């Protein structure tokens, strides 16, 4: 094991929190039972790392094995860094019959052709997700394992989730994905977040949506916190209506956790009391950002408690409806209109 590999392993162990070390090493599955016994998970990390390095020397492990350990850790703890969603467009006729081994082979060969040298590792997770770890190199150096890109894709769905991708690497990855999934183009889905599960659930509609029904609203039934039958709520009906509309716009129960929503306004300034600004020809550029630990939950609460007017404005309800949290709003006739960011590739 050379120096860079040792340092990489040291940095990786430093990164993994102490309480997750044992489970991550077990899942990695490369240590024998005897070696596992000899490791002391209570000693300080630097001592633990030394012991692990000795075992790695014993077994003659290389980059291949250590990056496997990193991938195991990231798959279990994906919520680090920002994830960006992409959407594949215009499937070919055989896109829906692309199967796993075929996709793996094609992706590896296309990416190796486009970005030589590159180190690609692919793994299928239990929930049908394919995880890809890419370490990029260029004509001067070997693949850089310190800054890998992670890609997650579910076959037969149009969505791809990516983290840690530079703008130089983006066209190479896009081309490889488009060719191996048998589509014609890929575009930015204008959705980003810190939690992979949240943006995935939002796009795949894996949260509880509410639709109007002719039956008594299950929401009203569930929210009956009748503490004292003598107390009567005066505005119960309108509160119920607001709750129904808020849930129809955003969903019911646990909502996917988004952290922010950004609106880039390129509209003309409209304020009759401020003549100088209104007389300007150019649009007034302004960026509005909503941030929260759980944005959709906050917006839903705003609507149901009456802070935001109902029916919910399409500016806010577009977030779950269109599955995006970046909007560009221009003056294109009556009412605001939203457009996608300039398409990539």
């Amino acid at each position, binding site marked *: 094991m050379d120096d860079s590999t040792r340092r990489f392993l040291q940095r990786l162990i430093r990164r993994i929190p102490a309480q997750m070390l044992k489970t991550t090493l077990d899942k990695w599955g490369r240590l024998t039972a005897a070696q596992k016994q000899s490791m002391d998970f209570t000693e300080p990390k630097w001592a633990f790392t030394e012991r692990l390095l000795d075992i790695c020397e014993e077994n003659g492990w290389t980059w291949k094995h250590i990056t496997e350990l990193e991938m195991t850790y990231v798959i279990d703890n994906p919520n680090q860094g920002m994830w960006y969603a992409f959407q594949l467009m215009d499937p070919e006729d055989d896109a829906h019959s692309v199967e796993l081994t075929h996709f793996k082979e094609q992706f590896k060969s296309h990416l190796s052709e486009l970005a030589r040298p590159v180190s690609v590792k692919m793994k299928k997770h239990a929930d049908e997700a394919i995880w890809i770890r890419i370490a990029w190199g260029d004509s001067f150096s070997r693949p850089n394992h310190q800054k890998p890109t992670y890609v997650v894709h579910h076959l037969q769905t149009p969505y791809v989730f990516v983290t840690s991708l530079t703008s130089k690497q983006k066209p190479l990855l896009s081309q490889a994905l488009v060719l191996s999934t048998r589509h014609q183009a890929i575009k930015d889905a204008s959705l980003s977040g810190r939690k992979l599960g949240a943006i995935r659930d939002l*796009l795949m509609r894996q949260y509880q949506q509410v*639709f109007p*029904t002719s039956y008594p609203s299950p929401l009203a039934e569930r929210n009956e916190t009748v503490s004292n039958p003598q107390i009567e709520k005066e505005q119960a009906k309108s509160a119920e209506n607001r709750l129904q509309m808020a849930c129809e716009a955003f969903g019911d129960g646990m909502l996917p956790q988004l952290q922010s929503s950004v609106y880039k306004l390129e509209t003309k300034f409209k304020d009759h009391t401020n003549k100088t600004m209104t007389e300007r020809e150019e649009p007034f550029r302004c960026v509005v950002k909503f941030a929260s630990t759980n944005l959709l939950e906050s917006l839903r609460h705003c609507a149901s408690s009456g802070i935001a007017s109902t029916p919910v404005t399409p500016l806010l309800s577009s977030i779950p409806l269109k599955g995006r949290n970046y909007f560009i709003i221009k003056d294109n006739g009556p009412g605001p209109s939203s457009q996608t960011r300039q398409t990539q590739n």
Partner: protein
Amino acid sequence: MQAASATGVLSHLSRLEVHARSRKTEPQQRSRVTELKAAAEQLRMRREQLRAEVETHKNLQKLRTSMDKRREDKEGEEGMDEDSEDSELLRLMARHTQLNDLLYAHHIIGGYDAIKTRQGQGLCLSLPTAYDGVFLETYNLEIDVKPAPRIARHNIPPFIPLSDLVEQSDMKTDIRAFLDTLSQHLNAFSGRKQQLKLVKELHKSVEVMESNALCSILVMMVTVPNEKTAILCTLDYTDHTRCLPTRVHFECNGKPLADSPDWDTNRSLLLETPVHKALSTMRRMGNIV
């Protein structure tokens, strides 16, 4: 004298022999009689049980007809004034069969619930899915009616080709055709998903190697008893409107399996019956572990 003593001993011996033999047959006869008596008793109990069931069923039918008639006549009286537990139970059972029939009627006319929203400008449809008598997920579509029918919101998963289906059928003139095709896709998807779930639950000896979100491909590893070889079964569901595979392929050690009557039977089982039932039959026949 010798003859007399010999006869004495011999006759004694023969008497003992007869005694021993009779002891063997007598208990046999006795046990046979008790067996038959026990069987007769069981059959009598079963007859009583069946008589009681028939009686209950007759009462249920009577109650059911009176309930249906009451619904039609819209009378507000409560018949059956007996407050016994039996009649309460009977009433519940009649109501249960009534609801089941109602659900079935709703199902055979398409099963879609449609309600108007936003003062007639919107329409919300719900498409239930079911497989093998079990209701699975319900999917919803919210449609804007004006200026042209267009889907505003839905919770249909992205691997169902919704936009393709919208293009293929004209929503303005024949929305029913569009809904029927969409319902076919959704029901087939739910059916395949349910079959996969049952395979994982019921057949622990079969390892699912590959499946995908659309449940259109299934690769399983089965083991042959005695030889303990592992066979890879690939099921391709290329027709997404069906719950049964269009192609079944067996592989052993990377090479296609040689033809044999056993595996031909297995192939036709997998092509013609749902996968979890086919696997049960294969196990019963002893073809797989």
